[in-house]
């Protein structure tokens, strides 16, 4: 049931991504008694509260001690349980990186790492809380799947897909509710979805930036520039066939991510294109190799040129042969 969880069944209001995964965890917990949830003093701000209320005996708040939390999760996983570890993206991926890598990746234990405050979405929280390296770090880990759903509906779908995955999974949650353009189609882990068709250029986007990529594509179409938009909700394993087809069939590729341009989506696409010898023009939008300033998230996206305007600008440049 692709739609059920992203609406409040009583009010029919659309749910945020946090509410959506919170409900999905309860759904998974009901179906699978081996599902456990862990947080580090953030059950409320991460909306893991639903699971804590439903299954108090399978929910653990381990305090502000992230390394221990992930180590504990590995112990639970090695004993046959399936831990969902929920945290702010920076602390999740950096404080406990080695535990994720050596205690989950290496022994290929099942476990799902769900992160809130992706990219610069926290805005004025500042650099300690800007998660601009998380996808790159998680991509580095053998056996790890890396997901970046665009909205609440796909966050719920990604959470279910992660449960079925035979190894550790990282889910980067964008607290967004806008349509991805992929509504009604199944969420297939490992494959990109086409959310806008065109042949002059391809924009590959992940997370909430998919919505802006679609917006940019609609604007460009008015000027006669047609753009294929690929919604890359799975950075790893990457749908390399879709990348290479875009390289063959359209003129240029622009990647868009709320993340450093190094090692994430742009990095993964660059590696794919270079290794295949596809001499396609590639533009990587995202945070260049700097710490972001203070600012509200939309201001920061405009500042770094990866809001809808910035994406349209980059496509125009890439297709004009100029810039």
């Amino acid at each position, binding site marked *: 049931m692709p739609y059920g969880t992203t609406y409040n069944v009583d009010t029919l209001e659309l749910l945020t991504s946090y509410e959506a995964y919170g409900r999905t965890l309860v759904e998974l917990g009901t179906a699978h008694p081996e599902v456990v949830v862990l947080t580090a003093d*953030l059950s409320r701000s991460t909306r893991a509260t639903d699971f804590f209320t439903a299954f108090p005996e399978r929910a653990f708040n381990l305090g*502000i001690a992230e390394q221990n939390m992930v180590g504990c999760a590995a112990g639970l996983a090695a004993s046959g349980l399936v831990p969902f570890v929920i945290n702010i993206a920076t602390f999740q991926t950096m404080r406990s990186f080695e535990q994720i890598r050596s205690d989950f990746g290496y022994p290929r234990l099942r476990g799902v790492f769900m992160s809130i405050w992706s990219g610069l979405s926290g805005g*004025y*929280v500042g650099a300690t809380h800007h998660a601009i390296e998380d996808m790159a770090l998680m991509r580095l880990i053998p056996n790890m799947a890396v997901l970046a759903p665009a909205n609440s509906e796909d966050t719920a779908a990604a959470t279910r897909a992660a449960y079925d995955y035979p190894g550790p999974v990282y889910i980067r949650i964008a607290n967004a509710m806008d349509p991805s353009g992929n509504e009604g189609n199944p969420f297939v882990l490992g494959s990109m979805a086409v959310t806008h068709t065109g042949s002059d250029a391809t924009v590959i986007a992940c997370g909430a930036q998919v919505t802006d990529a679609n917006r940019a594509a609609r604007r460009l179409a008015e000027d006669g520039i047609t753009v294929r938009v690929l919604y890359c909700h799975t950075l790893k394993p990457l749908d390399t066939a879709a990348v290479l087809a875009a390289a063959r069939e359209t003129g240029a590729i622009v990647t868009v991510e709320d993340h450093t341009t190094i090692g994430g989506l742009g990095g993964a696409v660059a590696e794919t294109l270079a290794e295949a010898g596809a001499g396609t023009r590639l533009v990587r939008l995202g945070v260049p190799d700097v710490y972001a300033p203070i*600012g509200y998230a939309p201001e920061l996206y405009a500042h770094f040129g990866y809001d809808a305007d910035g994406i349209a600008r980059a496509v125009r440049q890439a297709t004009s042969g100029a810039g």
Partner: protein
Amino acid sequence: MTAPAQRSDDLVRALEARAREIREQTIRLGVKSGSTHFGGSLSMVDVLVVLYFYVLRIDPQRPQWEERDRFILSKGHGATSYCPVLATAGFFPAGMMDDINHLGSAFGMHIDMRKIPGVDMSTGSLGHGLPVAVGMALADRVQKKDRRVFCMMGDAEQNEGSIWEAAQAAGHFKLGRLCAIVDRNRYSSEGDTEEILAIEPLHEKYAAFGWEVRRLDGHSIPALLDAFAALPTHDRTKPTAIIADTVKGKGVSFMEAGATWHYGALSEEDEAKAIAEIRGGAGSR
């Protein structure tokens, strides 16, 4: 550093007045921010005031003065009271905070040493401050300086393993000129520290790691003055941990409500109420 006997009633009254001023500015800055960490910003005000307006060897005209004492706000989310303290001390004009949170501002939710004059370390991720403070105290030895290093931590922050790695190092190296302060306001972001992941007995823990420990009322200016006056003057003796018993949200009655006001937004009406209470010296005790 002044001996306890020299602590005059005038001094205590002046510092208490300063603390009320800072609490009022905290409320105003928090409202300007939209929402912020009110609880933990208000609980540590009295400690900050005694440090910045009496104890610390600093020169706000020269924020990078080499001989200055160092202060690390390990609980970097306390910026809403810390930044007004720095402004009032004279490190920068208060008007500099007017654009808080907006694009390019020096001020956001946490603190950046490259943008805010007077900040000795960029913080925001919990559990980083004490290890850095240990490094600064070791630097004093290498550079043969008699600076002191102060580190203010949250109580739930004591859950972090890195704190205890640093506590171990400070005890081992006998960093006598290091003073750690724990803002023991009893609540984390979610609830009572003793219900979530107990940190007590904190006194015994630091003592076992080789620290001199003092536990005091963190809202009592005289008690704070005495404790800081009693810090050892020499290096190569036990580091000092001050466990400051405080009230989260101190000074505003409706914010003195456990973890409720760890983070939140204040309405205009409640802002006026909060400021009236602070001016009137209401709130607990």
